[in-house]
Protein backbone atom coordinates (compact mmCIF):
# COMPACT_ATOMS: atom_id res chain seq x y z
CA UNK A 1 0.00 0.00 0.00
CA UNK A 2 1.43 3.29 -1.06
CA UNK A 3 0.20 6.73 -0.19
CA UNK A 4 0.06 9.15 -3.08
CA UNK A 5 -0.20 12.90 -2.84
CA UNK A 6 -2.70 13.82 -5.54
CA UNK A 7 -3.94 17.34 -4.90
CA UNK A 8 -3.65 20.40 -2.77
CA UNK A 9 -6.57 20.39 -0.37
CA UNK A 10 -7.63 23.81 -1.61
CA UNK A 11 -7.73 22.69 -5.24
CA UNK A 12 -11.08 20.97 -4.94
CA UNK A 13 -13.84 23.03 -3.31
CA UNK A 14 -16.78 21.19 -1.70
CA UNK A 15 -19.12 19.72 -4.32
CA UNK A 16 -16.41 19.53 -6.95
CA UNK A 17 -14.15 16.83 -8.27
CA UNK A 18 -10.80 16.18 -9.89
CA UNK A 19 -9.49 13.44 -12.11
CA UNK A 20 -6.12 12.17 -10.93
CA UNK A 21 -3.83 9.40 -12.13
CA UNK A 22 -2.05 7.14 -9.68
CA UNK A 23 0.23 4.41 -10.98
CA UNK A 24 -1.58 4.41 -14.31
CA UNK A 25 -5.04 4.26 -12.74
CA UNK A 26 -7.48 7.09 -13.32
CA UNK A 27 -9.15 7.94 -10.03
CA UNK A 28 -12.07 10.32 -9.57
CA UNK A 29 -11.59 12.38 -6.42
CA UNK A 30 -14.61 14.20 -4.98
CA UNK A 31 -14.92 16.73 -2.18
CA UNK A 32 -18.22 16.02 -0.43
CA UNK A 33 -18.68 18.66 2.24
CA UNK A 34 -15.02 18.52 3.17
CA UNK A 35 -14.67 14.74 2.93
CA UNK A 36 -12.42 13.59 0.13
CA UNK A 37 -13.86 10.47 -1.51
CA UNK A 38 -12.01 8.57 -4.22
CA UNK A 39 -13.21 5.90 -6.65
CA UNK A 40 -11.82 4.32 -9.78
CA UNK A 41 -12.78 6.43 -12.80
CA UNK A 42 -14.32 3.54 -14.65
CA UNK A 43 -17.91 2.39 -14.47
CA UNK A 44 -17.99 -1.42 -14.12
CA UNK A 45 -20.82 -1.60 -16.64
CA UNK A 46 -19.22 -0.25 -19.83
CA UNK A 47 -16.39 1.95 -18.65
CA UNK A 48 -17.95 5.42 -18.54
CA UNK A 49 -15.87 8.10 -16.82
CA UNK A 50 -17.41 8.47 -13.35
CA UNK A 51 -15.57 11.73 -12.85
CA UNK A 52 -17.93 13.19 -15.47
CA UNK A 53 -21.04 11.97 -13.63
CA UNK A 54 -23.73 13.99 -11.95
CA UNK A 55 -23.70 14.04 -8.15
CA UNK A 56 -27.07 13.12 -6.74
CA UNK A 57 -28.63 12.16 -3.42
CA UNK A 58 -30.83 9.36 -2.23
CA UNK A 59 -34.61 9.45 -2.04
CA UNK A 60 -36.20 7.09 0.42
CA UNK A 61 -39.93 6.69 0.86
CA UNK A 62 -41.99 4.98 3.54
CA UNK A 63 -45.08 5.15 1.42
CA UNK A 64 -46.81 7.21 -1.23
CA UNK A 65 -46.49 10.92 -0.59
CA UNK A 66 -43.78 10.80 2.05
CA UNK A 67 -40.19 10.82 1.06
CA UNK A 68 -36.83 11.93 2.33
CA UNK A 69 -34.12 13.33 0.16
CA UNK A 70 -30.85 12.70 1.89
CA UNK A 71 -27.18 12.05 1.36
CA UNK A 72 -27.16 14.93 -1.08
CA UNK A 73 -24.10 14.89 -3.33
CA UNK A 74 -22.79 11.54 -2.03
CA UNK A 75 -23.84 9.42 -4.97
CA UNK A 76 -22.40 9.69 -8.46
CA UNK A 77 -24.40 8.78 -11.53
CA UNK A 78 -22.46 7.47 -14.53
CA UNK A 79 -22.74 9.95 -17.41
CA UNK A 80 -23.64 7.16 -19.81
CA UNK A 81 -26.29 4.72 -18.61
CA UNK A 82 -26.98 6.26 -15.22
CA UNK A 83 -25.61 3.55 -12.92
CA UNK A 84 -25.31 5.05 -9.45
CA UNK A 85 -22.49 4.49 -6.97
CA UNK A 86 -22.15 5.47 -3.34
CA UNK A 87 -18.99 7.56 -3.17
CA UNK A 88 -18.33 6.38 0.39
CA UNK A 89 -18.32 2.65 -0.41
CA UNK A 90 -18.12 2.36 -4.19
CA UNK A 91 -21.19 0.13 -4.09
CA UNK A 92 -24.01 0.59 -6.55
CA UNK A 93 -27.40 1.52 -5.25
CA UNK A 94 -29.32 -1.14 -7.17
CA UNK A 95 -27.02 -4.16 -6.81
CA UNK A 96 -24.47 -3.42 -4.07
CA UNK A 97 -23.21 -6.98 -3.68
CA UNK A 98 -22.28 -7.57 -7.30
CA UNK A 99 -21.89 -4.19 -8.95
CA UNK A 100 -19.39 -1.87 -7.39
CA UNK A 101 -16.44 0.29 -8.21
CA UNK A 102 -13.15 0.25 -6.31
CA UNK A 103 -12.98 2.97 -3.70
CA UNK A 104 -9.79 4.26 -2.10
CA UNK A 105 -9.02 5.52 1.37
CA UNK A 106 -8.02 9.15 1.49
CA UNK A 107 -6.68 11.53 4.07
CA UNK A 108 -5.58 15.12 4.34
CA UNK A 109 -2.00 15.58 5.51
CA UNK A 110 0.07 18.60 6.31
CA UNK A 111 3.09 18.99 4.09
CA UNK A 112 5.33 19.04 7.13
CA UNK A 113 4.27 15.50 8.09
CA UNK A 114 4.92 14.03 4.72
CA UNK A 115 8.63 14.23 4.99
CA UNK A 116 8.35 11.55 7.65
CA UNK A 117 6.12 9.00 5.91
CA UNK A 118 6.31 6.75 2.81
CA UNK A 119 4.65 9.22 0.48
CA UNK A 120 4.85 9.42 -3.29
CA UNK A 121 4.20 12.80 -4.89
CA UNK A 122 4.04 12.42 -8.63
CA UNK A 123 3.04 15.82 -9.85
CA UNK A 124 3.45 18.13 -6.88
CA UNK A 125 6.01 20.11 -5.17
CA UNK A 126 4.94 19.58 -1.58
CA UNK A 127 5.32 22.53 0.75
CA UNK A 128 5.64 22.17 4.47
CA UNK A 129 2.94 24.65 5.36
CA UNK A 130 0.11 23.40 3.12
CA UNK A 131 -2.49 20.59 3.31
CA UNK A 132 -2.61 17.82 0.73
CA UNK A 133 -5.04 15.08 -0.23
CA UNK A 134 -3.47 11.65 -0.03
CA UNK A 135 -4.86 8.47 -1.62
CA UNK A 136 -3.91 4.97 -0.55
CA UNK A 137 -3.43 2.62 -3.47
Amino acid at each position, binding site marked *: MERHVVAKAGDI*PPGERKLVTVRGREIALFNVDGDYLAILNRCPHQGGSLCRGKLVGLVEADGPGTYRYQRKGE*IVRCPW*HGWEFDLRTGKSYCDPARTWVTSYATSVERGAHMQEGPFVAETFEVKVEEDYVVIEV
Partner: protein
Amino acid sequence: MTLDEQTPPITTETPASQGRRASRPRPRLGIIDSDMHPTVRTIGEIKPFLSERWWRYLQSYGPRPKHGFAQGDPYPKAAPRAARRDAWGPNGAQPGSDLAFTREHYLDAYNIEFSIMAPLQPTGQADRNLDFGAAISSAVNDWQRAKWCAPEPRFKASIVIPYEDPPAAIREIERCAADPAFAQILMLARTFEPLGARKYWPIYEKAAEVGLPIGVHVFGYSGHPVTGAGWPSYYIEEMTGHAGACQAGVASLAMQGVFERIPKLKMIIIEGGFAWLAALGWRLDQHWARHRDEVPHVTRPPSETLRSHLWISTQPMEEPERAKQLLDVMGWIGFDRLLMATDYPHWDFDDPSFALPRALGPEVQKAITSGNARGVYRL
Protein backbone atom coordinates in the same frame (compact mmCIF):
# COMPACT_ATOMS: atom_id res chain seq x y z
CA MET B 1 -34.15 6.63 -6.44
CA THR B 2 -32.28 9.87 -6.60
CA LEU B 3 -32.97 13.38 -7.77
CA ASP B 4 -30.81 15.44 -10.05
CA GLU B 5 -28.43 18.04 -8.76
CA GLN B 6 -26.32 20.41 -10.77
CA THR B 7 -23.25 18.81 -12.26
CA PRO B 8 -20.27 20.83 -11.16
CA PRO B 9 -17.46 21.19 -13.66
CA ILE B 10 -14.26 19.23 -13.21
CA THR B 11 -12.02 21.62 -11.39
CA THR B 12 -8.63 20.93 -12.85
CA GLU B 13 -7.00 18.76 -15.43
CA THR B 14 -3.54 17.59 -14.52
CA PRO B 15 -1.28 16.59 -17.39
CA ALA B 16 -1.56 12.99 -16.26
CA SER B 17 -5.34 13.06 -16.66
CA GLN B 18 -5.31 14.03 -20.28
CA GLY B 19 -6.55 11.43 -22.71
CA ARG B 20 -9.99 10.35 -21.67
CA ARG B 21 -9.10 6.69 -21.47
CA ALA B 22 -5.49 6.62 -20.55
CA SER B 23 -6.00 3.40 -18.65
CA ARG B 24 -7.73 1.45 -21.37
CA PRO B 25 -6.28 0.13 -24.60
CA ARG B 26 -7.75 1.44 -27.77
CA PRO B 27 -9.52 -1.28 -29.78
CA ARG B 28 -7.10 -2.72 -32.29
CA LEU B 29 -9.69 -3.07 -34.99
CA GLY B 30 -11.41 -0.21 -36.72
CA ILE B 31 -15.11 -0.03 -35.91
CA ILE B 32 -17.87 0.58 -38.43
CA ASP B 33 -20.61 2.17 -36.39
CA SER B 34 -24.06 1.62 -37.85
CA ASP B 35 -25.78 4.28 -35.77
CA MET B 36 -24.51 7.75 -34.92
CA HIS B 37 -26.69 10.83 -34.51
CA PRO B 38 -25.39 14.15 -35.76
CA THR B 39 -27.40 17.25 -35.15
CA VAL B 40 -27.31 20.96 -35.79
CA ARG B 41 -25.81 23.43 -33.38
CA THR B 42 -28.62 25.78 -34.27
CA ILE B 43 -31.36 25.33 -36.83
CA GLY B 44 -29.70 28.08 -38.87
CA GLU B 45 -27.19 25.48 -40.07
CA ILE B 46 -29.70 24.14 -42.57
CA LYS B 47 -30.77 27.56 -43.81
CA PRO B 48 -28.23 27.63 -46.68
CA PHE B 49 -29.82 24.43 -48.00
CA LEU B 50 -33.43 25.64 -47.92
CA SER B 51 -35.23 27.95 -50.28
CA GLU B 52 -36.41 31.25 -48.86
CA ARG B 53 -39.95 29.92 -48.92
CA TRP B 54 -39.25 26.87 -46.81
CA TRP B 55 -36.94 28.71 -44.43
CA ARG B 56 -39.74 31.17 -43.76
CA TYR B 57 -42.21 28.31 -43.36
CA LEU B 58 -39.92 26.61 -40.87
CA GLN B 59 -39.68 29.83 -38.88
CA SER B 60 -43.41 30.57 -39.00
CA TYR B 61 -44.99 27.13 -38.66
CA GLY B 62 -42.31 24.64 -37.67
CA PRO B 63 -42.52 20.87 -38.03
CA ARG B 64 -45.90 19.14 -38.03
CA PRO B 65 -45.60 15.54 -36.93
CA LYS B 66 -48.78 13.52 -36.61
CA HIS B 67 -48.54 13.39 -32.87
CA GLY B 68 -48.17 16.05 -30.22
CA PHE B 69 -44.95 17.35 -28.75
CA ALA B 70 -43.85 18.84 -32.07
CA GLN B 71 -41.09 20.77 -30.33
CA GLY B 72 -39.98 18.06 -27.96
CA ASP B 73 -40.26 14.40 -27.13
CA PRO B 74 -43.39 12.47 -26.20
CA TYR B 75 -41.45 11.00 -23.25
CA PRO B 76 -38.89 12.63 -21.00
CA LYS B 77 -35.47 11.24 -21.89
CA ALA B 78 -33.04 9.90 -19.32
CA ALA B 79 -30.72 12.87 -19.79
CA PRO B 80 -30.87 16.25 -21.55
CA ARG B 81 -31.09 15.74 -25.34
CA ALA B 82 -31.10 12.01 -24.48
CA ALA B 83 -27.33 12.36 -24.53
CA ARG B 84 -24.32 11.14 -22.64
CA ARG B 85 -23.56 13.84 -20.12
CA ASP B 86 -19.94 13.89 -21.19
CA ALA B 87 -20.83 14.48 -24.85
CA TRP B 88 -21.61 18.20 -24.66
CA GLY B 89 -19.15 20.13 -26.77
CA PRO B 90 -17.34 23.39 -26.18
CA ASN B 91 -19.48 26.46 -25.43
CA GLY B 92 -22.49 24.32 -24.71
CA ALA B 93 -22.58 22.75 -28.18
CA GLN B 94 -25.30 20.12 -28.31
CA PRO B 95 -24.01 16.55 -28.28
CA GLY B 96 -23.24 15.49 -31.84
CA SER B 97 -23.17 19.04 -33.22
CA ASP B 98 -19.51 20.08 -33.05
CA LEU B 99 -17.27 18.47 -35.67
CA ALA B 100 -13.91 18.91 -33.94
CA PHE B 101 -15.20 17.72 -30.57
CA THR B 102 -17.07 14.78 -32.06
CA ARG B 103 -13.98 13.74 -33.98
CA GLU B 104 -11.90 13.55 -30.84
CA HIS B 105 -14.53 12.39 -28.36
CA TYR B 106 -16.00 9.75 -30.63
CA LEU B 107 -14.17 8.90 -33.89
CA ASP B 108 -10.69 8.89 -32.38
CA ALA B 109 -11.61 7.63 -28.92
CA TYR B 110 -13.33 4.49 -30.23
CA ASN B 111 -11.21 4.01 -33.34
CA ILE B 112 -14.18 4.44 -35.67
CA GLU B 113 -13.25 3.63 -39.24
CA PHE B 114 -16.63 4.65 -40.63
CA SER B 115 -19.58 6.19 -38.86
CA ILE B 116 -22.98 5.80 -40.49
CA MET B 117 -24.89 8.92 -39.54
CA ALA B 118 -28.61 8.80 -38.87
CA PRO B 119 -29.90 12.35 -38.47
CA LEU B 120 -33.07 12.41 -36.39
CA GLN B 121 -33.66 16.10 -35.81
CA PRO B 122 -34.56 17.84 -38.00
CA THR B 123 -35.39 15.51 -40.91
CA GLY B 124 -38.82 16.46 -42.24
CA GLN B 125 -39.71 12.77 -42.44
CA ALA B 126 -43.48 12.12 -42.23
CA ASP B 127 -44.27 15.80 -41.82
CA ARG B 128 -47.93 16.52 -42.56
CA ASN B 129 -46.89 19.17 -45.06
CA LEU B 130 -45.38 16.83 -47.64
CA ASP B 131 -43.59 19.51 -49.66
CA PHE B 132 -42.09 21.01 -46.55
CA GLY B 133 -40.97 17.56 -45.40
CA ALA B 134 -39.31 16.89 -48.74
CA ALA B 135 -37.52 20.26 -48.60
CA ILE B 136 -36.21 19.59 -45.09
CA SER B 137 -35.05 16.08 -46.07
CA SER B 138 -33.09 17.51 -49.00
CA ALA B 139 -31.60 20.22 -46.84
CA VAL B 140 -30.49 17.70 -44.21
CA ASN B 141 -28.84 15.59 -46.88
CA ASP B 142 -26.89 18.55 -48.22
CA TRP B 143 -26.05 19.60 -44.67
CA GLN B 144 -24.62 16.14 -43.88
CA ARG B 145 -22.35 16.30 -46.89
CA ALA B 146 -21.18 19.84 -46.27
CA LYS B 147 -20.81 19.81 -42.51
CA TRP B 148 -19.67 16.26 -41.80
CA CYS B 149 -18.59 14.22 -44.82
CA ALA B 150 -16.61 16.82 -46.73
CA PRO B 151 -14.24 17.69 -43.88
CA GLU B 152 -14.19 14.18 -42.35
CA PRO B 153 -14.49 11.18 -44.67
CA ARG B 154 -14.97 8.78 -41.76
CA PHE B 155 -18.50 10.18 -41.55
CA LYS B 156 -20.90 8.56 -43.99
CA ALA B 157 -24.27 10.13 -44.67
CA SER B 158 -27.74 8.61 -44.93
CA ILE B 159 -30.11 9.73 -47.64
CA VAL B 160 -32.95 11.01 -45.47
CA ILE B 161 -36.17 10.51 -47.45
CA PRO B 162 -39.72 11.78 -47.00
CA TYR B 163 -40.98 8.21 -47.13
CA GLU B 164 -44.68 9.04 -46.80
CA ASP B 165 -44.43 10.71 -50.20
CA PRO B 166 -42.81 7.94 -52.26
CA PRO B 167 -42.43 9.93 -55.50
CA ALA B 168 -40.60 12.67 -53.57
CA ALA B 169 -38.56 10.03 -51.73
CA ILE B 170 -37.51 8.50 -55.04
CA ARG B 171 -36.55 11.90 -56.42
CA GLU B 172 -34.39 12.46 -53.37
CA ILE B 173 -32.69 9.08 -53.75
CA GLU B 174 -32.01 9.87 -57.40
CA ARG B 175 -30.64 13.29 -56.49
CA CYS B 176 -28.20 11.94 -53.91
CA ALA B 177 -27.34 8.34 -54.80
CA ALA B 178 -24.39 9.09 -57.06
CA ASP B 179 -22.50 10.80 -54.24
CA PRO B 180 -20.30 8.22 -52.45
CA ALA B 181 -20.73 10.19 -49.23
CA PHE B 182 -24.07 8.37 -48.80
CA ALA B 183 -23.87 4.85 -47.41
CA GLN B 184 -27.56 4.08 -46.93
CA ILE B 185 -31.12 5.38 -47.20
CA LEU B 186 -32.84 6.22 -43.92
CA MET B 187 -36.41 5.58 -42.82
CA LEU B 188 -38.01 5.38 -39.40
CA ALA B 189 -39.77 2.29 -38.06
CA ARG B 190 -43.23 3.74 -37.39
CA THR B 191 -44.50 4.54 -40.86
CA PHE B 192 -48.15 5.40 -41.64
CA GLU B 193 -48.65 1.87 -42.95
CA PRO B 194 -46.58 -1.15 -41.88
CA LEU B 195 -43.15 -1.18 -43.51
CA GLY B 196 -44.00 -3.91 -46.00
CA ALA B 197 -47.01 -2.05 -47.44
CA ARG B 198 -47.24 -1.73 -51.22
CA LYS B 199 -47.04 2.04 -50.94
CA TYR B 200 -43.34 1.79 -50.04
CA TRP B 201 -42.30 -0.76 -52.67
CA PRO B 202 -41.24 1.86 -55.24
CA ILE B 203 -38.83 3.28 -52.64
CA TYR B 204 -37.42 -0.18 -52.01
CA GLU B 205 -37.12 -0.85 -55.73
CA LYS B 206 -35.20 2.38 -56.19
CA ALA B 207 -32.92 1.51 -53.27
CA ALA B 208 -32.13 -1.87 -54.83
CA GLU B 209 -31.57 -0.22 -58.18
CA VAL B 210 -29.02 2.26 -56.84
CA GLY B 211 -27.43 -0.38 -54.63
CA LEU B 212 -28.00 1.26 -51.26
CA PRO B 213 -29.42 -0.50 -48.20
CA ILE B 214 -32.40 0.92 -46.33
CA GLY B 215 -31.74 1.59 -42.69
CA VAL B 216 -34.86 1.61 -40.53
CA HIS B 217 -34.29 3.45 -37.28
CA VAL B 218 -36.72 3.26 -34.36
CA PHE B 219 -39.20 6.10 -33.71
CA GLY B 220 -41.39 7.75 -36.33
CA TYR B 221 -43.87 10.59 -36.68
CA SER B 222 -46.84 8.69 -38.06
CA GLY B 223 -49.01 9.30 -35.03
CA HIS B 224 -48.96 5.60 -34.20
CA PRO B 225 -47.90 4.92 -30.63
CA VAL B 226 -44.81 2.83 -30.01
CA THR B 227 -46.98 -0.11 -28.95
CA GLY B 228 -49.92 -1.78 -30.63
CA ALA B 229 -51.89 -1.20 -27.46
CA GLY B 230 -51.86 2.57 -27.26
CA TRP B 231 -49.59 5.26 -25.85
CA PRO B 232 -47.81 3.94 -22.76
CA SER B 233 -47.13 6.06 -19.69
CA TYR B 234 -43.40 5.88 -19.20
CA TYR B 235 -40.12 6.34 -21.03
CA ILE B 236 -39.11 2.81 -20.03
CA GLU B 237 -42.11 1.54 -21.94
CA GLU B 238 -41.10 3.54 -24.97
CA MET B 239 -37.55 2.17 -24.77
CA THR B 240 -38.79 -1.42 -24.58
CA GLY B 241 -41.65 -0.78 -26.99
CA HIS B 242 -39.30 -0.12 -29.92
CA ALA B 243 -38.69 -3.86 -30.18
CA GLY B 244 -42.41 -4.44 -30.65
CA ALA B 245 -42.71 -1.71 -33.26
CA CYS B 246 -39.77 -3.20 -35.15
CA GLN B 247 -41.28 -6.67 -35.04
CA ALA B 248 -44.46 -5.39 -36.63
CA GLY B 249 -42.36 -3.84 -39.39
CA VAL B 250 -40.29 -6.96 -39.99
CA ALA B 251 -43.36 -9.23 -39.99
CA SER B 252 -44.94 -6.94 -42.57
CA LEU B 253 -41.85 -6.98 -44.78
CA ALA B 254 -41.77 -10.77 -44.59
CA MET B 255 -45.49 -11.39 -45.19
CA GLN B 256 -45.76 -8.87 -48.02
CA GLY B 257 -42.99 -10.79 -49.70
CA VAL B 258 -40.98 -7.60 -50.12
CA PHE B 259 -37.66 -9.42 -50.30
CA GLU B 260 -38.97 -11.99 -52.77
CA ARG B 261 -40.27 -9.19 -54.95
CA ILE B 262 -37.07 -7.14 -54.73
CA PRO B 263 -34.27 -9.69 -54.44
CA LYS B 264 -31.49 -7.11 -54.27
CA LEU B 265 -33.03 -5.18 -51.37
CA LYS B 266 -30.98 -4.99 -48.17
CA MET B 267 -32.47 -3.61 -44.95
CA ILE B 268 -31.07 -2.82 -41.52
CA ILE B 269 -33.12 -2.52 -38.36
CA ILE B 270 -31.49 0.05 -36.09
CA GLU B 271 -31.75 0.57 -32.33
CA GLY B 272 -34.58 -1.80 -31.57
CA GLY B 273 -32.42 -4.40 -29.77
CA PHE B 274 -32.13 -7.76 -31.49
CA ALA B 275 -32.96 -10.72 -29.22
CA TRP B 276 -36.58 -10.69 -30.43
CA LEU B 277 -35.59 -11.37 -34.02
CA ALA B 278 -34.84 -15.04 -33.35
CA ALA B 279 -38.25 -15.73 -31.81
CA LEU B 280 -40.02 -13.70 -34.48
CA GLY B 281 -38.38 -15.85 -37.15
CA TRP B 282 -39.56 -19.04 -35.46
CA ARG B 283 -43.09 -17.73 -35.09
CA LEU B 284 -43.28 -16.54 -38.68
CA ASP B 285 -41.98 -19.87 -39.95
CA GLN B 286 -44.49 -21.78 -37.86
CA HIS B 287 -47.48 -19.80 -39.11
CA TRP B 288 -46.21 -19.71 -42.66
CA ALA B 289 -45.86 -23.49 -42.65
CA ARG B 290 -49.50 -23.87 -41.59
CA HIS B 291 -51.18 -21.03 -43.45
CA ARG B 292 -49.00 -20.48 -46.48
CA ASP B 293 -52.00 -20.44 -48.80
CA GLU B 294 -52.81 -17.02 -47.32
CA VAL B 295 -49.56 -15.62 -48.70
CA PRO B 296 -48.65 -17.59 -51.82
CA HIS B 297 -46.20 -14.86 -52.79
CA VAL B 298 -44.07 -15.84 -49.79
CA THR B 299 -42.16 -18.71 -51.27
CA ARG B 300 -39.54 -19.54 -48.65
CA PRO B 301 -39.62 -19.91 -44.88
CA PRO B 302 -39.66 -16.26 -43.72
CA SER B 303 -36.68 -16.65 -41.40
CA GLU B 304 -34.61 -17.90 -44.31
CA THR B 305 -35.50 -14.84 -46.39
CA LEU B 306 -34.79 -12.50 -43.51
CA ARG B 307 -31.41 -14.15 -43.02
CA SER B 308 -30.36 -13.15 -46.49
CA HIS B 309 -31.82 -9.63 -46.66
CA LEU B 310 -32.04 -8.23 -43.16
CA TRP B 311 -29.33 -7.01 -40.80
CA ILE B 312 -29.82 -5.71 -37.30
CA SER B 313 -27.82 -3.32 -35.14
CA THR B 314 -26.57 -4.44 -31.74
CA GLN B 315 -27.55 -1.39 -29.74
CA PRO B 316 -29.04 -1.24 -27.20
CA MET B 317 -27.13 -4.38 -26.32
CA GLU B 318 -29.10 -7.19 -24.74
CA GLU B 319 -27.75 -7.79 -21.23
CA PRO B 320 -28.92 -11.14 -19.86
CA GLU B 321 -27.57 -12.28 -16.50
CA ARG B 322 -25.52 -15.02 -18.08
CA ALA B 323 -23.39 -13.97 -21.05
CA LYS B 324 -23.79 -17.44 -22.52
CA GLN B 325 -27.44 -16.66 -23.19
CA LEU B 326 -26.44 -13.67 -25.28
CA LEU B 327 -24.14 -15.87 -27.35
CA ASP B 328 -27.00 -18.27 -27.96
CA VAL B 329 -29.33 -15.49 -29.09
CA MET B 330 -26.72 -14.04 -31.41
CA GLY B 331 -26.10 -17.46 -32.89
CA TRP B 332 -29.82 -18.01 -33.50
CA ILE B 333 -30.04 -14.75 -35.39
CA GLY B 334 -26.75 -15.37 -37.19
CA PHE B 335 -23.44 -13.74 -36.32
CA ASP B 336 -23.32 -12.49 -39.91
CA ARG B 337 -26.51 -10.43 -39.44
CA LEU B 338 -25.34 -8.26 -36.54
CA LEU B 339 -23.88 -4.78 -36.97
CA MET B 340 -22.14 -2.92 -34.17
CA ALA B 341 -23.86 0.34 -33.26
CA THR B 342 -22.91 2.86 -30.60
CA ASP B 343 -25.83 5.32 -30.81
CA TYR B 344 -23.34 8.09 -30.01
CA PRO B 345 -23.93 10.64 -28.52
CA HIS B 346 -27.06 9.30 -26.88
CA TRP B 347 -27.09 8.18 -23.27
CA ASP B 348 -27.75 4.55 -24.09
CA PHE B 349 -24.52 4.45 -26.08
CA ASP B 350 -22.70 1.11 -26.30
CA ASP B 351 -18.91 1.14 -26.11
CA PRO B 352 -17.56 -1.17 -28.83
CA SER B 353 -14.72 -2.30 -26.55
CA PHE B 354 -17.01 -3.49 -23.78
CA ALA B 355 -20.51 -4.13 -25.07
CA LEU B 356 -19.80 -7.37 -26.95
CA PRO B 357 -19.12 -10.51 -24.93
CA ARG B 358 -15.47 -11.54 -25.17
CA ALA B 359 -16.52 -15.15 -25.54
CA LEU B 360 -17.53 -14.37 -29.11
CA GLY B 361 -13.88 -14.68 -30.04
CA PRO B 362 -11.89 -12.36 -32.27
CA GLU B 363 -13.24 -13.49 -35.62
CA VAL B 364 -16.90 -13.03 -34.76
CA GLN B 365 -16.12 -9.78 -32.96
CA LYS B 366 -14.44 -8.49 -36.08
CA ALA B 367 -17.42 -9.54 -38.20
CA ILE B 368 -19.86 -7.71 -35.94
CA THR B 369 -17.74 -4.60 -35.45
CA SER B 370 -16.81 -4.11 -39.11
CA GLY B 371 -16.81 -7.12 -41.44
CA ASN B 372 -20.58 -7.52 -41.74
CA ALA B 373 -21.00 -3.78 -42.28
CA ARG B 374 -18.63 -3.87 -45.23
CA GLY B 375 -21.00 -6.23 -46.98
CA VAL B 376 -24.07 -4.08 -46.35
CA TYR B 377 -23.22 -0.41 -46.67
CA ARG B 378 -21.73 1.38 -49.60
CA LEU B 379 -18.38 2.39 -48.14
